[in-house]
């Protein structure tokens, strides 16, 4: 069991790509930590630098209080699950799982016994003699996990382990992964570009953009109070509405609609100041008729989300999306009035959040729950 610490970690690839740019991060012992970010932001690079497959250009990495910056991968006591699982195609499942033990020179019989034991924990007993090529994606993923578990590492590193699975399997695998991590209590760093996965799994999330961490927090914090407009537009199954506005008489004027200022932010706003008003589609209600403090727009697109509908309104403020009840009948072209929930509205000045997260974001709960992958 070990914590991970990174200080001013920088990785510049030959050719000048700055994939990591001064990362300072501490991951607690036993934590399930997600690295989230768009493609090319440096998630894999960070993970590989932790594993030792890439050497840091500057800065340091510590695992379990030990400085491992200069240690080769094999001596860091970590296990990595690759995106393509990297199961050895020429070895049976049993040999694959036992491979770390083979490197540790554990005798053959003990090795096979341990492999069988680990495989049993993951429900792989029936497949021990098969080759990886004869397994389904989900089974391969479990073999990869078993192989990582077999050497009892201090840290698990997962690089998008669920991305090769179909949507249904992914939900199952993710629950399974979470349970497994809880039981083992091993510090886990998990890379994903799927925000729903990160929200559902992680104890804490770091949202990255071009080699920097843009926000660090619990899933609830990151979802409720995205620290900047980048995170705001990245997190959430439907992107947040970010509308240009202006302070006008204690309200926010968004293209003619006067919206109430979020609670606790009344002071400190200068009249006429330009701000960005953020509201998630889930927190926009569609009023029956013209209403005060509502965003007005014509219905352009209605998307069925199953238990709800995502409506895109085109108004003077541009496109606004709202999630409305599944029973509501909407015809394209009709005028809609979207009313924001005041306690969920966010204000951004120069791209940074003005709202303060309450010390404890209790009842906000885990918003990631209902989101389909």
């Amino acid at each position, binding site marked *: 069991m070990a914590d991970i610490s990174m200080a001013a970690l920088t990785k510049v690839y030959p050719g000048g790509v700055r994939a990591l740019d001064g990362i300072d991060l501490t991951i607690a012992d036993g934590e399930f930590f997600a690295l989230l970010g768009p493609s090319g932001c440096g998630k894999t690079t960070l993970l590989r630098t932790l594993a*030792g497959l890439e050497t840091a250009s500057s800065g340091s990495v510590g695992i379990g209080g030990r400085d491992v910056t200069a240690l080769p991968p094999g001596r860091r006591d970590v296990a990595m699950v690759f995106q*393509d699982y990297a199961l*050895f*195609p020429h070895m049976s499942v049993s040999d694959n799982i036992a491979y770390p033990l083979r490197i540790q020179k554990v005798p053959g019989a003990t090795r096979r016994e341990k492999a069988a034991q680990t495989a049993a924990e993951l429900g792989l007993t029936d497949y021990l003699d098969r080759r990886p090529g004869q397994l389904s994606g989900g089974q391969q993923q479990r073999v990869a996990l078993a192989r990582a578990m077999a050497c009892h590492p201090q840290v698990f590193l997962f690089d998008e382990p669920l991305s090769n699975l179909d949507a249904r399997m992914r939900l199952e695998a993710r629950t399974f992964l979470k349970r497994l991590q809880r039981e083992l209590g091993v510090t886990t760093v998990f890379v994903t570009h799927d925000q729903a996965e990160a929200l559902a799994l992680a104890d804490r999330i770091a949202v990255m953009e071009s080699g920097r961490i843009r926000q660090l927090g619990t899933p609830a914090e990151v979802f409720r109070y995205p620290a900047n407009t980048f995170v705001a537009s990245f997190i959430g199954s439907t992107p947040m509405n970010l509308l240009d506005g202006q302070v006008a008489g204690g309200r926010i004027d968004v293209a003619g609609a006067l919206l109430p200022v979020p609670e606790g932010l009344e002071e400190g706003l200068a009249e006429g100041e330009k701000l960005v008003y953020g509201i998630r589609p889930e927190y926009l209600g569609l009023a029956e008729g013209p209403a005060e403090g509502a965003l007005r727009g014509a219905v352009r697109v209605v998307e069925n989300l199953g238990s709800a509908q995502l409506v895109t309104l085109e108004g003077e403020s541009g496109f606004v999306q709202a999630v409305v009840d599944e029973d509501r009948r909407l015809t394209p072209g009709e005028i809609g009035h979207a009313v924001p929930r005041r306690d969920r509205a966010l204000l951004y000045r120069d791209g940074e959040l003005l709202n303060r997260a309450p010390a404890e974001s209790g009842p906000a709960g885990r918003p990631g729950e209902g989101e389909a992958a």
Partner: protein
Amino acid sequence: MSTEATTDLEKHSSPGRGGPPPDPSATGHLAGLAGARQAVRRIGFYVFCCLLLAFFALPLLWLACAPFDRTPTITASLPDFTLQNFDTLFDNPYAMRSLGNSLLLAAGTGVLVVVFAALAAYALSRVRLPGRDALLYTLLLLSSIVTGTAAMVPLFNLAFELHLIDSQLGVILVLTGGLLPSAIFILKDFMDGTPRSYEESAQVFGASPLQIVRHVVVPLVRPGLATIAVWSVAQVWGNFLIPFLLLRSPEKSPAAVVMYTFYTEGGQPDLALISTFSLLYSLPVVLMFLLVSSRYGFRFHGGIKR
């Protein structure tokens, strides 16, 4: 191809052979005529193919017949059966020993080529070197000279300076040097085709580079290694120039060189001996091809099936 062709032939010839024609009047007759013409054309084609095949098969036929003939000539004919030629061959002091020498040279070179080519190809495939590809192409170009006639004199001088004249080790080293570049070139393609994540995965578990090569890389490129091994053995087996150049004593000479000495007292090539020896000489290579191709299969490109 041949099976396809025969079924084709059957299909075409069946109406002519007397399958019930659709209409037993003049049209039926016409159709039969057209079918016959088709069949004749087909037959002509196959006769041509057979002749062509016979032309190429004749030497092999000779190889199969002559050793068992009491009075072999350079024509292939039904043998006047005897095993006498084999007895003569076994009595020849150098014949059987030369096969052993060939085996030694081929095996030695094969092992060296496979081991060095595997290591070099792995390194070249995984390590970024400036000018790596240029290096490979230059080596490939030069290798055809190294074991070729053009480098005969310098090679001899080199071997002389290194005291490797009349040494089988010398022959093995020279042949290995000549074969390595092509072997590296082919194997590098195999290595390039195996994903790095396998090795990285092993690396994270603490495997050393040599362990990675043994446990992961070699099994993945096994068809490539088999191809290289067979290819280099065949190359050495058939090589005449280098051993002829570097070996003095007949008891160290391989089969290809010894065969050159089979003359009758009259100065005529001893066909009985040559044909019999040729048969023995070609058998091991054929057997090796069959064995390796059934066990590993040959492939000349990288990439792995998963």
